[in-house]
Structures are given as structure tokens and as C-alpha cells.
């Protein structure tokens, strides 16, 4: 059951990622299309499967953690613009990801524990 739910989250999450990416490809300007790059595709898949398998309490706990992760994602974006411009897409976004990890766990440690 556990393996099934994990695989299901992966399949639905992957599909939603592609779906939102397709929406982003059709929309212009690029700034507007960028919104879909931060779409809740993985989150929606995880929450849906969690609700079906474990229940609302687990889903609520997931969403609380996600608030901290999303705030850290805003930080990632703010840092990522300059990082991408200076270091390129791959290296810049990976460098910004280090910032996300620091911000996310700082928020988790301060607010969620």
C-alpha cells in the first residue's frame, strides 16, 4: 500500500508537471509563463493521494510544511534571477537551490517544530 501510494504520487505528480509545463509553453510573455514553473503539481499529487490513503490530518501536516517550503521557494526565485544571469541556467539554479535548503530548514526549525 505504501509503495503503491508513493508510485501513484510519482505518476500523478509527473503528469501534472508536464501539464503545467504545456500551459507555460503556450502563454506569453515569458514572465507570465514562468508562473507555471512554480505550479503546485507535485503538491497537488501528494495531497490528493494522501487524502485518499491516509486522511485529512496527514494532508494538513503536509500543507503546513509546504508553507515553509513555499516561502523558501520565493527566496529561491529572488536569488535565482541574479544567479541564473551570472552563472547560467543550470549552475545558477543549483546554487539558488542551496539557498532554498537553508531557508526551508531555517523556517522549519523556527516556525514548524
Amino acid at each position, binding site marked *: 500500500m505504501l509503495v503503491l501510494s508513493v508510485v501513484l504520487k510519482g505518476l500523478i505528480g509527473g503528469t501534472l*508537471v508536464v501539464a503545467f509545463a504545456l500551459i507555460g509553453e503556450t*502563454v506569453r510573455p515569458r514572465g507570465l509563463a514562468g508562473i507555471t514553473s512554480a505550479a503546485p503539481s*507535485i503538491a497537488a499529487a501528494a495531497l*490528493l493521494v494522501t487524502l485518499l490513503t491516509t486522511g485529512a490530518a496527514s494532508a494538513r501536516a503536509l500543507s503546513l*510544511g509546504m*508553507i515553509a517550503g513555499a516561502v523558501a*521557494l520565493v527566496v529561491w526565485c529572488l536569488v535565482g534571477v541574479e544567479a*541564473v*544571469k551570472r552563472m547560467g541556467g543550470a549552475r545558477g539554479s543549483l546554487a*539558488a537551490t542551496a539557498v532554498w535548503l537553508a531557508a526551508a530548514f531555517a523556517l522549519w526549525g523556527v516556525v514548524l517544530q
Partner: protein
Amino acid sequence: MNGAAATEMRRAERPGAERLQVDLGRLRLIRPWEYAIRFGFGFPMSVIAAVIGELAGPRVGGLFLAFPAILVATVTLVEKKEGVGQAATDVRGATFGAIGLIAFAVVVSALVDRSPSLALVGALLAWIVVSGVAYLGVRGLLRVTGERQYLPEIPTSDAATLVGILIARGMTVATADSLTGGTLSALVCSVPDARRVFRAGLVAPIGDLTKLPRPISETSREVAASRGGRPSLNGHQVDYMIERLSCNALRWQSGDRLDLQPGQPGAAPWPRPAPLEPSRSVRGMPAVARSG
């Protein structure tokens, strides 16, 4: 002035403001491997977030529901297809999506105990509304405050690298621009010390190499030959001539040869100056450094 002309004039006053539009035809441009890459990032990231949640608890798992793995993939793809400027713009747009993601999570946490289905639907709507309003709000604010985006989103730090290398080598550069409408020269000249290396620039209609004056390829070649092989433009002899560029992104590798077709203006071989530190990878536009 009729309505259409007035609309075009207002649009011309905002050279950086691209219209909001949905173009379904762009879906035909997406290659199958792009679907695979995106699914290839989405599937494992969802699995990893789920496994982390099982091992460390749902709150930690929830953190990773906002992990930027998809953004990393998207930014890399956009840079490959449209250049680093558009990739940076994509990240800028993702900021609004991330703000909407906060709203998504808040709505779920607030409603999921009462009605799970309402929580999910409401959360998705909250993401759409908050992201969209934030984006349109900032866009409108920029319009009201009169912000103009003169140059496209290009990292000027790359031009600074080029200028720095030229200063260190005691070299000079000119530009012959048939693809960027002058952005190339503006980019180089945006560097404070550019006057020490930049000698001249020429702008031809975008995409029309035939409009580049013949003197660039003929007279200058003759001049270059008589003066020991240095290209010149408008009487200015330089060490490097930056001519042909990638249209989508101002990217260059120092010392690389350009792939101009024989017979095109500027396609005649130039004597090649000493390459600019070929081991150093810099990002910008292809430079003309060809040997005869």
C-alpha cells in the same frame, strides 16, 4: 487618430511591454524529449518528497512539496531554447507562482479538515488568483511608474568579462550587427571601461546581411591585409570584430570562429588575432576571430 493607430502608438511607447497572449500553436514546437525531461523530473521528485515524508514525518515531507527541482529543469530548458535572458525572466515569473504556492498551502491547511475536496479545488483557485493578481499588479505598477525596459534581459556581467580581457590584453573591438538591432554594441558599451576598447559599431537591418556595407568585407579586408592583418571598421583598426551572433541569446565563446557562409558580407576570412584565453569559458556572443 483611429482606435487601432492609437493602440499601436501606446504599445510603441512601451517597447518592453509584450502583450499577454495564449498561442496554442507553440505546442507543436515541443519535442517529445522535452515531455520526457519534465516527466523525468516530476516523477522522481514526487517520489522523493513522498519517501521523505514517510521517513521524517509529513511536515518535513511538506517542505519538499515546494522543492525547486522542476524549476531547475525548466530554467535549464528555457536557457537552451531561448537564452539566459528568457531563463532569468522565467524565474522572475516563477516568483509570483511561488507566492501563489503559499496561498495554496494556506488554503489547504485551513479547509482540509472540513472538506478535503473543497480544500484542493479552493487551493488551486487560490494559486491561480494570487499568482495572477501579483503578476498583473506588478506589471501594471511598472507601467504606471513609467518603467521602460530598454535592453532585453541580458547579463551585462558577460560584457564586463569581455571588456576586462581586452583591456588586459591591450586589444580593441568593433561590432558589425545584423541580428540584434544595436543591442550588441549597447551591451559592450554598458561596461564603464568600454571606451578603452570599443572603437566602432555598425547596425544593419535585423536579419539582412546584404545590408551590411561592402566595405566591411572588401575594403576593410584590403586594409587589413595592408596593415598586417587587423580588421577595421569606419577607419578604426581593431583586434576583434564581433559580427555574427545568435539571435536568441547574446552568447559567445572567446576566440571561436563564426560559421558565416561564403559570399555573405563579412564572410571573407580575417587574419586571426591571438585567441582570448581559450581555456576560459565566458558566456556572450560568438566573436569573429578567423584566420585567413
